[in-house]
């Protein structure tokens, strides 16, 4: 049986999907419902290929990291088949883990340009009606930001400075009051003594 093959391209990246139609599901002969292999080629990087589970893990990880990057949220993406994280230099570090024993994980480092090309290829695949992949299970499930959600950075920048200012002012105010009261009571003592002296003189 002849396999169907479709490719999706964007600048530096090419995604090729091969597979067969599922005739039991009344598929057209041009469709792919059973993916037998896939290959992701990125310029200046080794080719990535695997089975359908690998493809689903890769798409899921890339979509999640894309959403997190845009929302400025940090979260480590680690699974049995792929780790994908943004490093300090602003590059994406990918670790692909093979299911075959004795195969070392493949480490890749890609920039924003290659990352957006890959996302673009996956988007083309998502909107291509001849390949049946359930994307609903692959889309990121990110909680919407609640109005009163706790943001550590925001808390640090907005709450801490006024609190420090308030405590500083309070401490200075207490010290000032303490000194003022001491001086005042000393003056009072002096005036009492002087009054007594006057009395003594009068006698």
């Amino acid at each position, binding site marked *: 049986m002849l396999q169907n093959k479709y490719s999706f391209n964007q*600048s530096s990246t090419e995604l090729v999907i091969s597979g067969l139609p599922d005739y039991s599901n009344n598929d057209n002969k041009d469709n792919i419902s059973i993916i037998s292999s896939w290959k992701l080629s990125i310029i200046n990087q080794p080719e990535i290929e695997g089975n359908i589970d690998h493809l689903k893990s890769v798409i899921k990880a890339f979509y999640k990291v*894309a959403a997190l*990057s*845009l929302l400025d949220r940090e979260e480590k993406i680690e699974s049995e088949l792929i780790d994908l994280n943004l490093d300090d230099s602003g*590059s994406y570090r990918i670790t692909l883990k093979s299911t075959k024993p004795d195969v070392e994980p493949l480490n890749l480092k890609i*920039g924003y340009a290659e990352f957006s090309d890959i996302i673009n290829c996956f*988007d083309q695949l998502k909107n291509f009606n001849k390949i049946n992949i359930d994307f609903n299970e692959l889309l990121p499930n990110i909680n*919407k*930001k609640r109005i009163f959600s706790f943001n550590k950075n925001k808390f640090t920048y907005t709450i801490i400075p006024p609190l420090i200012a308030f405590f500083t002012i309070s401490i200075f105010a207490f010290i000032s009051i303490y000194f003022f009261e001491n001086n005042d009571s000393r003056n009072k003592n002096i005036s009492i003594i002087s009054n007594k002296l006057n009395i003594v003189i009068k006698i």
Partner: protein
Amino acid sequence: MLLLAIETIDLNGSESMFVISNKLNLQHLFPSKVSIWKLRSNNPLRKSQSINNINYEQFDGLTKITSEMSKYLYPYIRAIVSSKDNFIKKPELWNDFQSRYTELIEERFNTESIIVRNLMNYDQNQKFFKKILLTLSLASSDEGYNRLRFVLANL
């Protein structure tokens, strides 16, 4: 900020945005270039900020324009991002983008604001500018409009 970045890349940006809005059949929302400009003036960082209430349809229209513009400009956006990724080898495109974007911010935004001053600081604005370009490049694909809408709704 996204539309300003588009204007930075496309020198005739405001004209292109109007043409795109007509192409997307948004004439009822944006009958003239001024109507787009008025909505853009809602940005509180602008020098001449005008307070116009943006309704959901107008917000959606601007999102569609941004996504569609990024589709057309994707090769340029990608080239600038790539220049930043390989800054040591080819810094020219990134430097040009950074200086023109900073100039536009200085020209249009309230420079008394600390946020705007930080945006004009060459050392501090790089990360933010890169993120703006990533947002535009991810908004340029077939799913770009939905992605951009999701992000803007969750900022």
